[in-house]
């Protein structure tokens, strides 16, 4: 196995182009599990840990950019003005994992249970990807995630980061699992209120092949009175109806659907409370 070690983003993209077979590694928290278990035996690794450009974030004229190499520990510490993402970052595994695992890795793994993805989906974020030949492009998250553990990333592209229009209104993230720590989400939800207080964006994790947006529920809630119990119930019902959960060893489809109904209702009620 070869190791390719670029020291800048340009160099990394060049290596990626010339060695598309090399498996990129940043924090290693997903990849190493598979390497240790010998489920993966890549021919080469592309070590991104020296590409400093990936480990930064900034907010400029209303746009937030978080580099792919930002760890969840740093996100939890530094992006506190975005509570859903910071909370999602804090919900990742353990302190040990949060110190290493990166948001870029979470996107690349593209698990429907990826903890940071619902928040990014609720922000309507774009994934910023780049290639040495075709340059940089912004891919809406919904187009980036094409299936369970599948993305639309081209073989010569790397994830540079994730970008969204800064949000100012309340948002919240909840993750449900069988135990109180160290758990893969059985279901998760993130709700973000839009800037005009007209509507919300609701993203759901672990209840479909990719993280989903509950578009019908969102349309329904637009301009309604969120303190009305009937609205809350219908919002929950619609959200649950939009899920495509499966039965697996971590939870049942019925439970996942049920949880989404409860969480959607609770998160909308919480948003309404925050307005008052």
């Amino acid at each position: 196995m070869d190791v390719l070690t670029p020291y800048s983003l340009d160099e990394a993209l060049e290596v990626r182009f010339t060695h598309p077979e090399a498996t990129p590694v940043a924090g290693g928290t997903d990849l190493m599990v598979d390497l240790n278990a010998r489920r993966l035996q890549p021919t080469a690794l592309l070590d991104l840990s020296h590409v400093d450009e990936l480990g930064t974030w900034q907010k400029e004229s209303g746009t937030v950019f978080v580099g792919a190499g930002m760890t969840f520990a740093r996100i939890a510490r530094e992006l506190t003005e975005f509570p859903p993402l910071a909370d999602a970052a804090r919900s990742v595994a353990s302190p040990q994992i949060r110190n290493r695992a990166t948001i870029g890795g979470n996107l690349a793994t593209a698990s429907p249970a990826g903890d940071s993805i619902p928040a990014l989906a609720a922000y309507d974020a774009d994934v910023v990807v780049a290639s040495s030949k075709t340059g940089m492009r912004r891919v809406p998250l919904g187009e980036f995630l094409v299936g369970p553990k599948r993305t639309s990333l081209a073989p010569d592209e790397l994830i540079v980061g994730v970008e969204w229009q800064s949000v100012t209104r309340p948002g919240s993230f909840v993750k449900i699992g069988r135990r109180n720590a160290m758990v893969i989400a059985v279901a998760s939800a993130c709700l973000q209120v839009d800037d005009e207080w007209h509507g919300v964006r609701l993203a759901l994790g672990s209840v479909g092949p990719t993280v989903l947006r509950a578009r019908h529920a969102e349309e329904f809630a637009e301009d309604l009175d969120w303190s009305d119990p009937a609205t809350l119930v219908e919002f929950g019902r619609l959200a649950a109806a939009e899920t495509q959960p499966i039965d697996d060893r971590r939870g049942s489809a019925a439970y996942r659907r049920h949880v989404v109904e409860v969480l959607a209702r609770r998160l909308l009620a919480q948003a309404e409370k925050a307005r008052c």
Partner: protein
Amino acid sequence: MLIHATVNGTQHTVHVAPETSLLTLLRDELGLTGTKNACEEGECGSCSVWLDGELVCSCLVPALQANRHEVRTIEALAPGEELHPLQDAFLATGAVQCGFCTPGLLVAAEDLLERNPSPSDDEIREALAGNFCRCTGYQKIVEAVQVASGRAGLLTAVEHGKVGESARRVDGIPKVTGAFTYGSDLRADGMLQGVTLRSPHPSARIHSIDVTKAEAAPGVHAVLTADDVPGKPTFGLEYSDQPVLASDVVRYEGEPVAIVAAETLEQARRAAELVEVEYEPLSVVSDMEDALRPDAPQVHEFGNVLRHVHILHGEPDTTEADVWVEGYYETPMQDQAALGPEAGLAVPSEDGSVDLHVTTQWLHVDRQQIAPCLDLPEEKVRITLTGVGGAFGSREDIHVQIHACLLALRTKRPVKMTYGREESFSGHVHRHPSRTWIRYGATKEGRLVAADVRLLLDGGAYASSSPAVLANASTFAAGPYEVPNARIEGTVVYTNNPPCGAMRGFGAPQVCFAYESAMDNLAAKLGIDPIELRLKNAVSSGSVLPTGQVLTGSAPLREVIERCAAIPLPEHAPLDAMTHGVGFAVGFKNVAYSEGFDDSAEATVTIEVGPNGLEAQVQTAAVDYGQGLYTVLAQIVRTELGIEHVVVLPSDTSAIGSAGSTSASRQTTMAGAAVLAACREIRAELDTNGAAESITRTVTYQHRVTTGFDEKGQGDIHVAFAFIAERAVVEVDEELGLARVVQIAAVQDAGRVINPQGAEGQVEGGAAIGLGLALMEELQLEEGQVRNGSFTDYLIPTALDVPPVISGFVEVPEPGAPYGVKGIGELATVAATPAIVAALRAATGRVLNRVPVNPDDLLGLRAPAATAGRAPIPDVPGQQPIPEYLGMALGQQELMKAR
């Protein structure tokens, strides 16, 4: 690639493969084995180190990323002679048991204190949630961090404690510095690495095994199959029905088929992948009730019934009762999930003998099973105990022992074998899944008049200790109550599921869940307080059990119940949308071996004048896998001989006779009694002849004789009994179906507490395993295949899941036991599960007849476990295990050949 890394201040230049983890680099290349490997999935935190000052799981850091970075490990926590305050706090509070998780926990705790010098309990639990501990239940670890942060006073364990004092662990210091050598840490010059090739099928015929390619692979020294086993082809704890390596058929997923020794682990693994095995999948017996059908495929040629126990007492079939309650209960396959992996190092000698250093619970019975397979007399197999990272029953059976010896004898090189976490799930036995149909009859005043229990256990593919587990479960099935009329029909069957055997509680937890659930139903039906109902029926000294056995020992169950019920409930306000519930359960279990087993323990105590005055040495072959036995033995010597300095020598088959297994809550009684007797002989010698240069006494202790079952299941089956009461308080989010245990209170009948802190540790840790069974632990099987054999998906409780446990002890000495002790290792597991489930029922009003209770159960999304009626009673010759009637002491394969 070549990397330069600074580790604990020293610059290293090493060559690493790209896929190598920092953990492997530290352990295998740099010899820093204080950092532990318990999962390689980043779940357990045992491999925690600092990378550039940040806490990481070293198993998930590519070693190449340590290039030009700085790594700090447990070995650097206290580089000098003095312990770091956290290390000292861990020892002072009893936060160390097996110690396998300890280095990782110390690193994580120090990381917390560096960032937050005075954390709250919640902050401590949050920070340590990524570090699993399977022994302590986390409470004493939280206390240790409180102490180290200066928030709590030093709860100092006594340095040279005697009986009744919280003596510090005799093996504590190496466990907190990372110097303690566990099986997986062993090394020898010229050592080869051994790996096992296992069956991917739960049931299949093997048509051929071709090892040609594997043998030709780089670095390979031996590839062995069943044909290479020189001696007896099978082994087993009770019946020799399990092949050393499968030859004609495989009976469970994960059954060993071939073994490989190579220069490196990677080479051995690659070679194992090159072994070509042609399987023909056969039909799978995956359900224990299906196994009883007349048309079921036969797991073994002699049938699927391993044992049936029939107990008939009084006239249960004609007893009239005012009230009957009837229930059906299920428990799953639970994994011991000891953090230390199965491991051993076999070193061959020129005379054809072999030394085996191994993680086990019983050295001598290992040897009894190993030697015939190697075709060696027992004295040519010498077994030495290595550090054991927890066991909980999982190390009663053979794991790497025979395979490592075979490879070492073949290659004439030392061979090391260590299971990874996934292999560990296949490489040891589990707790039996159970189905129990129970019926209690009572008067309207609440006095039990009859019990009728049908019990079915899934023994999996091989016998292991199933016959004894069944005997236990059957004899406890009517509960620790006076029931004048009882019928208990217990059956354990073979299936193509992974083999089941010993796990903490050994048959008691399964039936305790059933009888305590039924008692709550009875209380509800009668309108009597559940605690009062239990008090009304509790056994006491002189009571007669359904086996006809009279409780001749101490049985302070009523006091145990009353003390537990009197522990104050937690002061807490449930959060929004949370309802809370309180549940109560009692349980009981035997101490030591039963059914007439010839059970003994040998100990040698020596006193001699050393440089620091009189010193004592204790030698047994007993295993301390974390619970503190060696400390207890030292306490006994200090108490009896007044000698402060006591050395507990390593356990070894060459040095001394058997001490029996560290299981069945027996070792404080058994090894403790042998040590006590040896000390008293020395004392007598000193009193008679005065001080001498050196005095040595060896004593073998045997407990009182028990009997087997007669044809009605009557007999003096057990040596002694211990009792427990536990109360659980839970909070349930009724909309999300999520439960949190807020408090567990436990009062245990201990006879006499030898080490209060150690005893609490057993209760706290035992309760945590019972909590796991109640809420999350289940090895999920589908057609014989394990779906969640990893720490990512087999969930065990974290520091955020186990609540504070308030423990207490009732001390009424057991006649005939040293100081009146009763073993305390298992009971807290037994009653925690039903207490928690009772609390969940109280909170939700749901019928919960299956554990683990999952969110679907709490929400009513999943129906209670249903039954089509009681399992049939098999037609069997008598009370003995079926292999007994077939002369199976021979071993399954010989038996088939003889036919």
